């Protein structure tokens, strides 16, 4: 393999198809990841609170969902949702981006299952004395949670949540199975045109790496700022 030719090919591909990679691929990957992490965190937080609530049936249901999600492959879940959701909600078939939506739902629920465990352990890691002090002052459960426990839990959670974000960015690549326009789909498209597999893989890999590198740097800044506050 001639490295010189390879480098030239890479430059050519970037010059010709940068729009496919950056505009279409990166934007889709980022939007999907953001949706997955944002709603995953919100739903994950609800799962975590539900799991810590005294209502037993709620605990069981959430535990079942979380364990099923964590115990099966992401790819299998993607297939499941892409086939299951349209059969349950027929109107989905009329929408152009039905696959995209199904994939997003699958990613959100997958992310929620993982973040719920992260959040639960983060909340449980906050010293019980903090809750007791707050309750002993006459503050209610909700105020105690929102003013005292959650702000401290977030500090515990943030590093793990950052890792989850990075994992999700990479997991969105599985969605290319359904050709929904993420970065890995861009790779499949461009490779399909010029058959330069190695070069396309290197470009795609580099973009994923840069995305996650920037992301992890942003998270480090966040963490440092949180630490500086206490």
């Amino acid at each position: 393999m001639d490295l010189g030719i390879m480098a030239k090919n890479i430059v050519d591909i970037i010059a010709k198809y940068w729009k496919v990679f950056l505009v279409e691929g990166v934007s889709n990957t980022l939007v999907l990841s953001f949706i997955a992490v944002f709603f995953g965190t919100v739903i994950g937080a609800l799962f975590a609170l539900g799991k810590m609530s005294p209502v037993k049936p709620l605990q069981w249901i959430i535990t079942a969902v979380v364990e099923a999600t964590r115990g099966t492959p992401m790819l299998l879940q993607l297939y499941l949702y892409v086939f299951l959701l349209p059969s349950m909600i027929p109107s989905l078939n009329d929408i152009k981006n039905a696959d995209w939506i199904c994939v997003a739902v699958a990613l959100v629920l997958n992310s929620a299952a993982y973040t719920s465990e992260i959040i639960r352990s983060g909340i449980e890691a906050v010293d019980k004395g903090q809750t007791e002090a707050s309750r002993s002052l006459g503050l209610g459960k909700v105020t105690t949670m929102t003013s005292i426990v959650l702000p401290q839990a977030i500090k515990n959670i943030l590093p793990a949540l950052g890792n989850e974000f990075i994992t999700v960015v990479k997991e969105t690549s599985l969605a290319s199975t359904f050709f929904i326009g993420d970065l890995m789909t861009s790779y499949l498209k461009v490779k399909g045109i010029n058959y330069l597999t190695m070069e396309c893989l290197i470009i795609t890999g580099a973009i994923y790496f840069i995305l996650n590198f920037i992301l992890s740097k942003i998270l480090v800044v966040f963490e440092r700022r949180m630490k500086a506050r206490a």
Partner: protein
Amino acid sequence: MLSIKNIYKNFGDLKVLKGVSEEIEQGEVVAIIGPSGSGKSTMLRCMNLLETPTFGEVWMDGKLLTPIDPYLHEEVIKASNTFKKMVAGGMEEETAVKEIKEKDLLKEKFSAAEGKEYGALMKKLYKENYIDINFARRDMGMVFQQFNLFNNKTIKENIMLAPVKIGMQSRKQTGLTKQEIVAAAESKAMELLKRIGLESKADVYPSTLSGGQKQRIAIVRALAMNPKVMLFDEPTSALDPEMIGEVLDLMKELANDGMTMVVVTHEMGFAREVADRVLFMDDGMIVEQGSPAEVFDNPQSPRLKDFLSKVL
């Protein structure tokens, strides 16, 4: 003012409190001493329901904090079907009540119709006397062994949090604006910090303070709610020896100001000097109590004698 009646507390199979009753009077300083594992802290924590008693009732200012304990109310026992059956069987009323209490007979199942009067009476008693625990706790400050200052808040915010939150909740009744509530809480917080000479620490986070400073701030944080009674759970046990003095001095000051205080402590000197009454607990019961002079200089029970010989 604060009374606990026949409190039992079980943690699983472990029986920590075995029927303690106590009445704390207004302005009184009560010290609770005893070996570790004797249930001192659990009893204190039952007083503001940080631990829920398994049986028994807690009353604060004539208001009930726990569910009704039927065995503590003769009229409830008399409304029960068990009692009626016993009396119908020819038993004296007094004997029946006694028997039911001793043999724990109210647990007997009865049909809904049979239990109607009993249930209605329980509900009525509860409704008349019950107060929401979050309201009751505003009158009961608590100080912990591990200080438990809020790590995510500055010292000033620590002190202001509860007055502001609760001020906002009752804004409709008081008609105050948010600014007024915050300003009042802030000036109160600064006044309290000044009192303990720590106003320079208002804007730092708790992690930068010494143990003694943390505990004094924990005390004024509780005082910011203007409590009627202060509960101290071994306030000096986690402190370095040279910092114990400053915390005890503040507590003495409070006692001199007439604050009602219940103090679980290993500081016998403090108990002897400041307390009006000393309770000695062992094995989940109050074994002996009296004035400091009586308890320390003339102990009656062998267990107290044994305990004092070890700690004094």
